């Protein structure tokens, strides 16, 4: 049972670790290596995480992002990725939902604060 569930999902990772000549994910440049190392340490891993683990996480993140992008493109306004679609997709997951709402709120506040600051400077 576990094997059946595992194989289709982890085919890509196995091929990549085997150093396969697939030219797909195995050969792609590592996009998030440095950031992921810091993140893993922050979340509880060792100060120097294994490179294979970082690679696996990077593949997971990239897969997550591409999946979410494709889903967002298929709902709401077709062919476009909009924030409302992302928020809709995330509605059932409390952590991600709260986090995204917070980030967007903070961003708005920062923009407003910056704008007010600039206007104050311009006035004087």
């Amino acid at each position, binding site marked *: 049972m*576990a094997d059946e*569930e*595992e194989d*289709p*999902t*982890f085919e890509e*990772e196995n091929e990549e*670790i085997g150093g396969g000549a697939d030219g797909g994910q195995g050969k792609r440049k590592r*996009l*998030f290596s440095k*950031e*992921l190392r*810091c*993140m*893993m*340490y*922050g*979340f*509880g*891993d*060792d100060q120097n*995480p*294994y490179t*294979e*683990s970082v690679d*696996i*996480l990077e593949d*997971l*993140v990239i897969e*997550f*992002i*591409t*999946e*979410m*992008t*494709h889903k967002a493109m298929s709902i709401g306004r077709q*062919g*476009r*990725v*909009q*924030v409302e679609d*992302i928020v809709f997709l995330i509605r059932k*997951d*409390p*952590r*991600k*939902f*709260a*986090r*995204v*709402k*917070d*980030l*967007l*709120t*903070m961003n708005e*506040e*920062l923009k*407003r604060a910056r704008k*007010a600051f600039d206007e104050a400077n311009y006035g004087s």
Partner: protein
Amino acid sequence: MLKANTSLSDKHGDTSVSGEMPAVPMVLGANDKDGIPGDQFRELKEASEDEGELRCPDGSDLMAGEREDASLFPPAAKRLKRNTKTEKETKEKVDEEEVQRMKILLSSLSEEQQNRYEMYRRSAFRQETMRSLIQTTAGRSVSQNVVIAMSGMAKVFVGEVVEEALDVCERWGETPPLQPKHLREAVRRLNSKGQIPNVKGKKILFF
């Protein structure tokens, strides 16, 4: 969302705070911020008022307003204004308490823990890389907010996987640097909980 609310009120153990609906989502917002130092965030929050709508999803703002004035009968306009004022005061009081508690907690951490906490707050995905990845997938340009939202979600996702993997590691009686087998088992578990998005999944109905 309800789950998140109860866990926070348990953490505070302060019945006066958790009793009020508007206050708890405020705390939720304050707790979950990364990447912006606490003081700066507090100033910003006090500077801009009435941001309540986003912090209280599902329109709980409206519910709180109605519930509070069941006992008073002023006209509608005055009613809303009065509630916003008390809401703001409670908000600020809760913020002050929250900041105090964080300070106490942070000062009692060991150096290694402080390091780790700093890494936790500061680590983030680079926006340019994220933007180019999303745009390549989408085939067209995306707005800044999308990149911000996606980066935040990706970080939470990494957190979920790493935490689950650490749990697996502990259960198997092994020690930290996480190995690929821990991560794979973690993903398998999250998959059955439905946390991993998977459009290509084969849906087998009756097994």
